[in-house]
């Protein structure tokens, strides 16, 4: 674990894997909840957790460097289920990358258990991990100017669901009608870091929500 100072009141804690970043994030949230850590923002990402708005960064850095990380605690049984129609325009390309028939993509994807590694890009957009590394795919060579809201997409090791229409270079494999982000709702985000997720296939005639 490497602790990098950031400005005057923040720290970037770097670890060596996504799993460790998730374990570190869970541990930091636990400490903030019990009151032993004060931080304005705790922002997990691919290999890091950013602690922003800390009062004594030097002392905290020393404390974190000595931290022995417990494994990711098993979360309460709750798993978010996202109904999805596997009807994306990039199914054939993804199947080719994976070396499987096009019909297999849905089966493989829906069999995995995902976890929200971190959020970013847009409010409510979660970067989900859970597929074995052999299923990593590159981004599209040319990004689309408009990806529709609800598109279920792959890039690198991640699965994501576009919370609103936006440009994007991810490989589109399906569509959900579930609203993942609604600031008028409490909580606004369905996908928060650490949440477990499964994708449940539905057929074209069923509503995916």
């Amino acid at each position: 674990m490497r602790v990098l100072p950031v400005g005057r009141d923040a720290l970037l804690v770097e670890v060596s894997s996504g799993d460790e970043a998730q374990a570190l994030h869970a541990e930091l949230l636990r400490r903030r909840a019990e009151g032993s850590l004060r931080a304005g923002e705790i922002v997990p990402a691919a290999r890091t957790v950013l602690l922003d708005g800390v009062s004594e960064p030097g002392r905290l850095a020393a404390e974190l460097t000595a931290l022995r990380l417990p494994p990711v605690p098993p979360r309460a049984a709750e798993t978010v289920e996202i109904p999805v129609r596997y009807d994306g325009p990039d199914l054939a390309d993804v199947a080719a990358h994976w070396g499987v028939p096009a019909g297999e993509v849905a089966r493989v994807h829906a069999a995995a258990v995902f976890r929200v590694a971190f959020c970013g890009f847009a409010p409510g957009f979660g970067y989900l991990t859970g597929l074995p590394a052999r299923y990593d795919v590159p981004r599209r060579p040319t990004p689309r100017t408009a990806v529709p809201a609800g598109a279920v997409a792959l890039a690198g090791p991640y699965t994501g669901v576009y919370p609103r229409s936006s440009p994007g270079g991810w490989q589109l494999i399906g569509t959900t009608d579930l609203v993942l982000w609604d600031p008028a709702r409490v909580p606004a985000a369905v996908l928060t870091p650490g949440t477990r997720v499964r994708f449940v296939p539905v057929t074209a005639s069923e509503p995916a929500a």
Partner: protein
Amino acid sequence: MTDRALAVVRAGALTTVQDRGRPGHAHLGVPRSGALDGPAAALANRLAGNAPDAAVLETTLDGCSVRPRSTVTVAVTGAPCPVRVDGRPAAWGAPVRVRAGSVLDVGAVVRGVRSYVAVSGGIAVEPVLGSRSTDLLSGLGPAPLTDGAVLPLGPPREGHGGVDVAPQPAPPAVLVLRVTTGPRDDWFTPEAVRLLTSRTYHVSPASNRIALRTAGPALERARREELPSEGMMLGAVQVPPDGTPVVFLADHPTTGGYPVIAVVHRADLPAAAQAPPGTPLRFVAVRRR
């Protein structure tokens, strides 16, 4: 009059509603947002008798005009500009009474970029995640003002703070931003760090609420691989592939994949918000406390 609202007569180039933003949601991908020149917005609220978290208008270069439907106290701060009520000159940086139906015109800036307009009672649009700020990156909060729009006002506070006039810093002729290096200075050549903190950059016209963009010497990377996405912070000096640094302001993305060579002291960011395109810009390295 009980009709507490403000009609927009002239929206201006870009006028948004801003308060102190919505920090604390970065882990959900939600930018902090909020007034770019926080001290100017806070002063406008004090002058207008508002609580410090009341929402104000943030204009960009050419001001705006509004017509209150009830008699209000207003205050214009930030970038200096002519202020008029029904065409007659009124004070900048001081409380001004505007009668119901009169037109307050906030003119084009004389210096600086962003003027702040506080109205007694505050702009009372519906908050989103605890804030009324317009976030131009993710589209949260109210849309930027348009001609003819009507904004609700909150109830005025009884007995306001009694500030009549207060000194304000002049927008900078040269923008000096103190930085501490890191967290990713080791992704750059030693020469790049030296260039950043010794050469003069200029504020680019492509600057906005998301980032202050710059023109100047490109900074060369020592490590060419892709940086896995990591948390981004206010004031981050991020270096995209073209090598020219950008400074993240309130509407910045919460994660990013380009390395951050240094971080600007928060206290220097209000001045960055008031530096028009072309302003000479120097980054000065300061040791960590």
